[in-house]
């Protein structure tokens, strides 16, 4: 069975926010809730990098671990979903998530924290497929329609890939080898160290 994943290619993202718009439009998401957003580092300076961020549907999801009412479940495709009927809006999942994926609509006159809302990988929720209840609570169920998430399919530069982890990894691998990028890729230095920042060999030091 496929394990669904997102892959954001910072070399291609042009910060058009098309993915954000596609997500909002597809699921009728209210003001103040952003299931997906584009984060730009060094904005306005040459060499700025943008990356599209949402729920990454972690294999070992910390939100699932901390939820006191156990509303999260994982589908057979590895998509992390939740049952809004049980959510108490405590916000533990927000603190646990490294991507800031859980969103809380500010309902009520005093800005109360509503039930958590997050990216569903366009897979709806535990309500019957294509039902009005499912759309109202979780948005459209494109996965049950045999489609991929709207954000990834809408991406003009295909910076955002979504789908079977093996397939999109192959696409990205081919892309990287074709464009001839290796250690110049953004994030490589952070992950594996910068070649130019190696300490100079001291005389007499072991190599």
């Amino acid at each position, binding site marked *: 069975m496929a394990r669904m994943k997102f892959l954001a290619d910072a070399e291609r993202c042009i910060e058009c926010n098309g993915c954000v718009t596609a997500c909002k439009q597809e699921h009728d998401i209210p003001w103040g809730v952003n299931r997906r957003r584009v984060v730009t580092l060094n904005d306005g300076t040459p060499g700025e990098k943008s990356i599209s961020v949402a729920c990454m549907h972690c294999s070992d999801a910390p939100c699932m671990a901390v*939820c006191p009412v156990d509303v999260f*479940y994982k589908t057979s495709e590895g998509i992390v979903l*939740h049952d809004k009927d049980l959510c108490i809006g405590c916000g533990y999942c927000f603190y646990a998530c490294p991507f800031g994926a859980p969103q809380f609509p500010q309902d009520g006159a005093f800005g109360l924290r509503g039930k958590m809302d997050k990216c569903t990988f366009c897979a709806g929720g*535990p309500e019957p*497929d*294509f039902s009005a209840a499912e759309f109202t609570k979780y948005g459209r169920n494109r996965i*049950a329609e*045999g489609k991929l998430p709207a954000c990834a399919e809408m991406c003009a530069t295909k910076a955002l890939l979504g*789908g079977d982890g093996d397939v*999109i990894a192959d696409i990205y691998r081919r892309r990287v080898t074709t464009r001839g990028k290796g250690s110049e890729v953004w994030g490589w230095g952070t992950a594996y160290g910068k070649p130019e920042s190696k300490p100079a060999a001291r005389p007499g030091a072991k190599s």
Partner: protein
Amino acid sequence: MRKLLLVAVAAALPLVAAGCGEKPTVTVYKQGQYQGKPDKQPWDNEQFKGDKVAWEKALKARNVGQNEYERVAAH
């Protein structure tokens, strides 16, 4: 006097025995189980009618369609 002593012992006995019923106060964390409604498989609907292979085929076509090296070369 003896009666008074017996009453005092009888009154103190539950307090002494209460110590035996003390429960450990160290919390043991357990992995939670999903408490919500069960969800169906994405191919169990009126569109795919339980045909998992057809669903996987549809999704695979979309997956591969994201690779413009293949998509552009095909046209």
